[in-house]
C-alpha cells in the first residue's frame, strides 16, 4: 500500500517544552485515528502535517513532498490537502456559501463557475444544501461543525486531516459523518484526531496514541482492543485500583484495569478500555 504521509523523528518545541518528541510513523490510504489526552501533542502534529507550522527537527513527507521543503512543494501539498482545525470561528456576517467560497478561493479554485459548483457539492455532502444563504451565526453548533467539515472536502483532497470533527454533532449527524468518512477512505487517506472512541471503533482501520508528545501505540484497531482483553471487569462493586469505573448499561459496575474481586467477570473490551489502560490516569484527568 502506498505511503501517503511519512513522519520521521519529528520534534516540535514551544520554548523548553518538547510538545512532540521524536515522533515517527507512516500513513497509508484508509482512516487512522489519532488518540491522546489533552496536551499530548495531537493538534501540534496536525498543524505540522497540514504545513501550517514547521517541525524543529525531523522530516515530514506528505503525498511525496517535504512539508518543510520549498514553497512549490508545500503549495503542491496544500492543493491536495483537506484540513479541519479543532475550532473554526467564522468571519462575521458570512453566509455558509460565502465561507466555503472563500476557502475555495484560498485553495486556488479561480474559475468562479467551477468554484461555485464545488461549493454546492460539498454543501450537499454535509447536508447543508438548503442553507447556502443562511448567515453562519444563525446555524446551530452542529451545522457549523458540518460547514467546517465541508471546507475540508473542497477539491476532493487525497489527504484529510481532521481535528475532533464530531464535536457538537448529534448522534444522527455523527452517523452521517461516519458514512461520509468511510466513503472518503476508499480513495484517500484520513487522519482523525478525536476523543470519541466510538468513532474510532466505527470507522478507523488503525490507531496511533500519543502520550506526552511520544507515540505510545501504533497498530490496527482490533489489536489495540485485544490489548485490553482480560483487563476489563463487570461486577457488583468498583475495583479499588481500577483506572476508571462506571455503571454498566446492562447492570453492575464496569471497571477498567486493577485487581478484580472474586465475583467480577471479564467483559469484552472496547477501544475506550484499551485507551484508558494505555494512557492510565492521564486519560481520565484529560477527559475531566
Amino acid at each position, binding site marked *: 500500500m502506498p505511503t501517503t504521509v511519512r513522519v520521521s523523528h519529528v520534534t516540535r518545541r514551544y520554548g523548553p517544552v518538547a510538545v512532540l518528541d521524536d515522533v515517527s510513523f507512516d500513513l497509508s490510504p484508509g482512516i487512522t485515528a489519532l488518540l491522546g489526552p489533552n496536551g499530548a501533542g495531537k493538534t501540534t502534529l496536525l*498543524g505540522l502535517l*497540514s*504545513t*501550517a*507550522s*514547521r517541525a524543529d527537527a525531523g522530516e515530514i513527507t506528505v503525498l511525496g513532498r517535504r512539508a518543510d521543503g*520549498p*514553497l*512549490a512543494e*508545500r*503549495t*503542491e501539498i*496544500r*492543493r491536495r*490537502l483537506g*484540513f479541519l*482545525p*479543532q*475550532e*473554526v*470561528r*467564522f*468571519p*462575521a*456576517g*458570512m*453566509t455558509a*456559501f*460565502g465561507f466555503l*467560497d*472563500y*476557502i475555495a*478561493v*484560498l*485553495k*486556488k*479554485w*479561480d474559475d*468562479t*463557475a467551477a468554484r*461555485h459548483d464545488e*461549493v*454546492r457539492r460539498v454543501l450537499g455532502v454535509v447536508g447543508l444544501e438548503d442553507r*447556502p*444563504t443562511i448567515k453562519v451565526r444563525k446555524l446551530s453548533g452542529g451545522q457549523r461543525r458540518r460547514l*467546517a467539515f465541508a*471546507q475540508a472536502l473542497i477539491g476532493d483532497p487525497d489527504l484529510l486531516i481532521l481535528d475532533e470533527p464530531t464535536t457538537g454533532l448529534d448522534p444522527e449527524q455523527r452517523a452521517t459523518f461516519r458514512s461520509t468518512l468511510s466513503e472518503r477512505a476508499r480513495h484517500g487517506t484520513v487522519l482523525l484526531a478525536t476523543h470519541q472512541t466510538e468513532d474510532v471503533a466505527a470507522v478507523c482501520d488503525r490507531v496511533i496514541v500519543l502520550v506526552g508528545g511520544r507515540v505510545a501505540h501504533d497498530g490496527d484497531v482490533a489489536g489495540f482492543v485485544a490489548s485490553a482483553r482480560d483487563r476489563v471487569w463487570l461486577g457488583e462493586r468498583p475495583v479499588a485500583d481500577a483506572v476508571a469505573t462506571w455503571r454498566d448499561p446492562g447492570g453492575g459496575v464496569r471497571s477498567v484495569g486493577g485487581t478484580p474481586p472474586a465475583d467480577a467477570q471479564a467483559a469484552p473490551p472496547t477501544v475506550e478500555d484499551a485507551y484508558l489502560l494505555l494512557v492510565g490516569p492521564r486519560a481520565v484527568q484529560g477527559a475531566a
Partner: protein
Amino acid sequence: MSAWHVDDTVATAYGTRRLDAVQRASVEAHAVRCEDCRAFLAASATGDHRRTDLDLDLDQMWTRIEAAISAPELGRGGQALLRLGASMSDVVVTRVVAAQSRQWTIATTLVLAVTAVAAVLGPVDSAHAAFLIVAPLLPALGVAATYRLVPHGIHLLERAAPFSPARMLLWRTAYVVFTAVPVAVAVGAVVLHHPGAAVSWLLPALACTLCVTAASTWSDPVRPAAFVALGWTGVIIAWQVRDTPWAITTASTQLVAVAVSVGAALLLHRRLTSDPAPSAIGGT
C-alpha cells in the same frame, strides 16, 4: 426595488453571453429580486426561435440564477474592483478581509473623530501632535490588526492553503490603506493649519506601513507594529520638545521617509519572492 427592468435587448445579450461579468452579475442580482424579470428571462430563453437560432440552454440559465441566489453579492466595492481588473477571487478575498477588519475600521474612524474633536475643543499644539502621531501609524497598525482579527481556526486554514501569502498580505495592506488614508486626509485638512501639513504625513505613513509589512515576513506583525509606533511617537515628541513641530513638512524629513520606504519596499519584495516564504504572514 429599482425602476430598471430587463428588456428584450438585455435578455438576448444575457442569453447569448454577450454581457461582461459585472453586467451579468447585475442582471442576475436583479432577477433574484424581481419575479417579472425572472419570468421574462425564462420566457426569452425558452422562445423557440432563440433556442433554435441562438442555442440557448435553459438549464444553464437557471443554474446561473441559482448560483446568483446562493453566491454572496459583489457589492459596490467588489464591482469597482472587477472594473479595475481584479479577479473574482481577489474580490472574494477582499470581501472577507473587510468583514474580518470591521472592528479595525470602526476603531480607526473613532480615533480620527476624537482627534478632530480634540483639535476643535483642546489646545491646538496638542491636537497637531496627536494627529501627527496617529495618522501615519493607522495603516501600519492596520496591517497588524488585520492579521490579529482573523478568527481562530481561519488563520490555520489560510496558512494551510495554496493561496499566496504574499498576495494576502498585499490585499490586507491595500484594504487598510484605502479605508484609513482618505478619512485621515480629510481630518488632517481640518486639524492641521500649516502649509503642506495636511498631506505631509503621507510619506511617513508609507514608510511606517512598509516597515511593518516587511518586518511581518519575519515575525508576528504586532511586534514590528508596536516597535514602529513607539519609534514614530518618539520622533513626534522630540520635534515638540525641540520646538520644531512642523519638521515633518521639511524636505529632509520627506526625503528620509522616501528612503525608508524604498528600502522597506525592496526588502519586502526580496522576502516575498524568496524561499522559504515568510512565516508570520502564513507561508511557513
